[in-house]
């Protein structure tokens, strides 16, 4: 046991491990905050679609030769978020089709571009990194770290300031609208913040696994906790703990970061599922 701690301590001597840890935890915190709203508003699929859009944008950025991919990925993903929200409001089915179309299209075009204009000798590895985030978290530059910290803090502040409004719009959009709350504006805000989180989270888990980071902590918390506040707070804690555990495990065991974190999230979800089941049984038994 002591040996394990020593190994971990030794790894933390490295600057890139420290960066990975700071950024990983902040991303986990942010992604869990909106998870509850996205799950409850039945918007989970939008998160998935957006992450594929972000992949396409990343590919374009790589081909163009930008050192900081976020410059292109961020505005493209935000634009896509606004677009998807618009279409899904008009009609449910059309929205679904639009998400599928955009996301699969972006995925295919991204891969195609990366193959036609390869930026390194090993295209498959590049693609794998963007999809599953295996090493990108360990190769962050100091600029990216600060960008992540800044955007994460902004996300948390926006969430806290608009917490009551986000709750009202999530629980009952029509009521909120009828009593004069600008529901469309807050939906837009939710979509933009989601897009920002997704671009950030691509560094941690890669574009295919982002949805897991967003929805698993929320779903786990919803099994056990009963109020919106407790679900939000506990999903943030679950997400941070899972990310930290996953990061440590992957560093020590040498497993890919993204899938390891998601695996921890899944285990925690199963535990909470069981706990929730037991609690409801005990209640009924009384």
């Amino acid at each position, binding site marked *: 046991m002591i040996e394990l701690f020593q190994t971990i301590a030794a790894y933390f001597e490295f600057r890139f491990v420290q960066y990975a840890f700071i950024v990983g935890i902040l991303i986990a915190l942010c992604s869990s905050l909106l998870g509850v709203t996205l799950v409850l508003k039945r918007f989970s699929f939008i998160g998935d679609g957006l992450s594929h859009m972000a992949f396409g944008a990343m590919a374009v950025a790589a081909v163009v030769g930008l050192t900081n991919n976020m410059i292109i990925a961020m505005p493209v993903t935000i634009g896509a978020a606004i677009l998807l929200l618009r279409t899904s409001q008009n009609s449910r089915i059309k929205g679904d089709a639009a998400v599928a179309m955009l996301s699969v299209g972006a995925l295919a075009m991204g891969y195609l571009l990366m193959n036609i204009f390869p930026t390194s000798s090993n295209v498959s590895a590049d693609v794998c990194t963007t999809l599953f985030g295996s090493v990108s978290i360990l190769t962050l530059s100091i600029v990216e770290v600060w960008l992540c910290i800044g955007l994460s803090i902004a996300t948390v502040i926006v969430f806290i300031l608009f917490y009551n409004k986000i709750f009202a719009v999530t629980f009952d959009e*029509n009521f909120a609208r009828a009593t004069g709350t600008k529901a469309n504006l807050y939906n837009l805000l939710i979509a933009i913040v989601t897009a920002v989180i997704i671009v950030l989270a691509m560094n941690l888990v890669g574009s295919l696994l982002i949805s897991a980071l967003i929805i698993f902590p929320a779903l786990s918390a919803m099994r056990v906790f009963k109020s*919106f506040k407790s679900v939000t707070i506990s999903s943030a804690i679950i997400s941070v703990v899972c990310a930290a555990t996953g990061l440590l495990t992957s560093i020590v065991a040498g497993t890919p970061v993204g899938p390891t974190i998601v695996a921890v999230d899944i285990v925690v979800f199963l535990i909470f599922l069981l706990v929730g089941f037991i609690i409801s049984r005990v209640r009924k038994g009384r």
Partner: protein
Amino acid sequence: MALLSFENISIGYDNNPIVENLNFEVEQGDYLTVLGENGAGKSTLLKTMLGLMKPLSGKIVFDKKVKKTEIGYLPQQTVVQKDFPASVWEIVISGCLSKTGLRPFYSKQEKEIAEANIKKLGLEDLKKRCYRELSGGQQQRVLLARALCASNKLLVLDEPVTGLDPKVTVQLYEIIASLNKEGITIIMISHDLQALQYANKVLHIGHQTFFGSKEDYLKSQDYQIFSKEGGKQND
């Protein structure tokens, strides 16, 4: 002047009117029941009243005493709400949201309003309970408390007794009637003729539009036809 008046309103979707040239007025303290068959346009009328939809033509005039956003609304339950993790308190106080404006958090005064409405509807013991674990009648009382937080002048209720058992239905009607006695104007959409018992005015939309006092309505042909059809539905 009437609290709320509909002047030559036509409602519907995509320029396909469901109801045309509707004229009626709601006075302060009224209890108006809106009746009509399924598909007659009751829900569309309600959405138009709440400003969720624009009327195809005509206009809705609000008295200066009520702002357009000062309508307490009791909606039909949505699928989302069935497994929504929220406490009774969180839901009731969300009715005060329009009062906060740009302020991010609820003030002490708004919390007091929420407390008072929780008490009024006898929900003190359920305050910390999870909404999704409550019975249908309790859930409706929670949503009613939230509606009262949004307005103490005008309540709009959309089929409030759907899915409730007869005993709870009567209880809920009694609560609504007592709110009306306190001076709150009630507009209730229903296809339940039991709802008529408490109303003083009736708006019937369908093949023919009727608007007037309950007494006149009970003598009208609309009522004769509707009560027969309603009876058939219940069989």
